[in-house]
């Protein structure tokens, strides 16, 4: 027994004799080229973080985004990097688990300047206060304008609410709906669905539409009964803020029940895989609004990215995450160059540079972005597209980038 006491005392002594972790606060300083640097930046490299989901439910999309990020990093380093520094990515997987992300974050934080990718709405919510406390500029893989509460979150693209407003005005402009009509909105409970609903509510108020709201969960896959209910209420159009599978179910029911009204969906409602699903024949009434392009879009920059994707030898089938990941990184490039010009590559310097970024160009991968107004979506422009199996990517544009009058006057939740 005395042995154990001795062991315990000895280990206490060992612990006590080791130095504590204190000291050595890294305050940053002057780096190469007369640029102020801080966390994540050395004289030769700039490290950016990626917290992604490689094992959980959003594995496919996240892997696409990560590959998009990686392609950009290769490109930019081939051109000599940014600010004479090579860009490096520090990639960690959290498996869509908020708890894992919460512990991995403090490990990643001291190594990176900002985060190019943060996947998952529960993860983003859990890290929100950390990101703000560390002044960590971060691109969440979500387009909810509710997130703009945190000035360090940079959303690349149009938010779901604005997409809905633009989409509804497109329908009205085409004569598919009129003031005073009844319109149904099916949305998933959560950050994504609520934000889409917010836009629909705004538009309905402006145009006296009677909005029939139907809340579902992400696992409801047969929506025939919902569509039947909406038919009974005489809807002139159905709005969707749902998963692609649910979109297929609604489209099929719309046709089968003889309702045949236009269906308007947010960006994530469509997946090219729908063309191989039983709903393939019923997609002609579907209109999708988005601010970023699908993988095989007919845009020079996109074709260049697609070619590079193939050359890189990634084994996964590409998806819309790839151009988005590339575009996000491109925006980061713009912001970092601006920070470099300002001579301040610290986190606060990056944040300042972000707020000065009024026209981030991504070669039309995403609508031009303006980050100068805190709380406001960086762009209000969208494309309208329709499914078309014959074109690569499965979508054809029916309306090029535009912004509606209602979207211009709309006030996002944290704007102003």
């Amino acid at each position, binding site marked *: 027994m005395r042995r154990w006491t001795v062991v315990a005392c000895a280990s206490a002594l060992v*612990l006590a004799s080791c130095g*504590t972790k204190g000291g050595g606060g890294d305050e940053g300083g002057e780096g190469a080229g007369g640029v102020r640097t801080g966390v994540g930046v050395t004289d030769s490299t700039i490290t950016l973080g990626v917290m992604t989901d*490689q094992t959980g439910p959003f594995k496919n999309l996240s892997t696409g985004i990560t590959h998009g990020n990686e392609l950009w990093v290769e490109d930019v380093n081939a051109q000599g990097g940014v600010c004479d520094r090579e860009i490096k990515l520090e990639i960690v997987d959290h498996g869509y688990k908020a708890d894992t992300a919460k512990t991995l974050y403090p490990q990643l934080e001291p190594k990176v300047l900002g985060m190019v990718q943060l996947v998952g709405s529960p993860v983003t919510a859990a890290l929100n206060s950390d990101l703000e406390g560390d002044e960590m500029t971060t691109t969440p893989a979500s387009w909810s304008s509710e997130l703009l509460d945190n000035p360090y979150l940079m959303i690349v693209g149009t938010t779901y609410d604005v997409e809905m407003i633009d989409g509804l005005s497109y329908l009205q402009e085409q004569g598919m709906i009129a003031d005073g009509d009844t319109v149904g909105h099916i949305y998933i409970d959560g950050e994504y669905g609520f934000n889409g609903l917010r836009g629909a509510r705004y538009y309905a108020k402006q145009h006296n539409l009677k909005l029939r709201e139907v809340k579902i969960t*992400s696992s409801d896959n047969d929506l025939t009964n919902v569509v039947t209910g909406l038919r009974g209420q005489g809807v002139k159009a159905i709005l969707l803020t749902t998963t692609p599978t649910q979109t297929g179910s609604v489209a099929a029911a719309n046709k089968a029940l003889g309702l045949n009204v236009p269906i308007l969906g947010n960006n994530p409602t469509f997946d090219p895989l729908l063309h191989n699903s039983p709903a393939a024949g019923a997609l002609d009434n579907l209109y999708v609004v988005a601010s970023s392009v699908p993988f095989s879009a007919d845009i020079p920059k996109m074709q260049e990215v697609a070619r590079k994707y193939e050359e890189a030898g990634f084994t996964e089938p590409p998806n819309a995450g790839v151009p988005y990941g590339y575009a996000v990184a491109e925006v980061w490039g713009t912001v970092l160059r601006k920070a470099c010009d300002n001579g301040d590559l610290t986190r606060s310097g990056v944040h300042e540079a972000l707020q000065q970024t009024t026209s981030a160009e991504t070669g039309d991968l995403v609508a031009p972005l303006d980050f100068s107004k805190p709380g406001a979506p960086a762009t209000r422009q969208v494309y309208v597209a329709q499914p078309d199996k014959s074109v690569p990517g499965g979508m054809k544009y029916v309306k090029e980038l535009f912004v509606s009058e209602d979207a211009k006057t709309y006030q996002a939740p944290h704007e102003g």
Partner: protein
Amino acid sequence: MWWVRALLWLALLIVLLALPLYLEAQWLRAGEYMMVGAVGAIGLTLLTGQAGQLSLAHAFFLLAGGTAYTVLAGGQEGERNLVGFNLPPLLALLGAVAITALLGIAFAPVAGRLRGIYLGVASLALVFLGLYFGQAAEGLTGGTSTGRAPEPFSLFGFEFSNEGDLEILGVPFRQSERVWYLFLGLLLIAFLLALGAVRSRVGRSWRAVRDNEAAAAVMGVSVARAKAGAFAVSSAYAGLAGVMTVLWFDILKPDESEFGTYGINVSIAFLAMVIIGGLGSVPGALVGAVVVNGLPQVLALYSTKLGWFTGTGEGAFTPVLISSFVYGAAIILVVLFEPGGLAAIGRRIAGRLSNPARGRE
């Protein structure tokens, strides 16, 4: 040799008290998450191990406790229609524990009538009720779309957050370090109370009811009361774990789907802790929490630190994936080879040390 045992516990406590001086923030966070699990697991081991009632409702009480704390300590926000009472955090914490205990008592009529797997399934209903409640009661929970930030805990004016500069022995004490001590204190209280309950008349009545209800009734134990009491105590523990959960996450965010922070997966994780640790053993619950809540975190941290498994493509082995394999294997191994759990192994080692002759038999 009770004093040796006491001395060992004391040594462990001293080590735990000293850790924030040495460990970096990410390890502290992982440790705090283990403590959250430990408090909840102690509650479940009392209910399932001592009183013999299977419950899958733990995640629901976690959500209830977290929500109660956030509402009691939080402020009124007219713009978002949020309800808040602005109570001091300590009162809010006690209130949350009391509210979850009452919810547990409210479930007692059901718990009193059902046994075994039937009770498990009935209690599962509460988890789905919680899922609905979290989404519907936006005024309390803040809703799934944004959630609601809880008031940081503070005690007599001392904030358990990044507020103010505090340095001890040259180590800056920020949120991670401060919360470590808060959680350690709560765990210590929870642990001692549970040990007290197990060793006292209450614990004996639980075990009597578990082993044979008729016999227990004959001996003068009120079966209904013992069952309701066990459920209330266990719920209170889960409620406390819920408060710790929202403080650890810095946010109360109700789940969007069945799997999440307060979903069925969490109820099952608590059950796994209790089984790995050994049903009914309070120290076992601590070890179970370390394995179930700690392993994925520690594995992810270590492998990231050492640069293992950094593939990004399809089928890449990542720490998260590996930890789920290890965790699954641990449960199977324990159930197959040591149904008494790690507590049984611990008892055997202790027995061998204190009485070598008997241990070798």
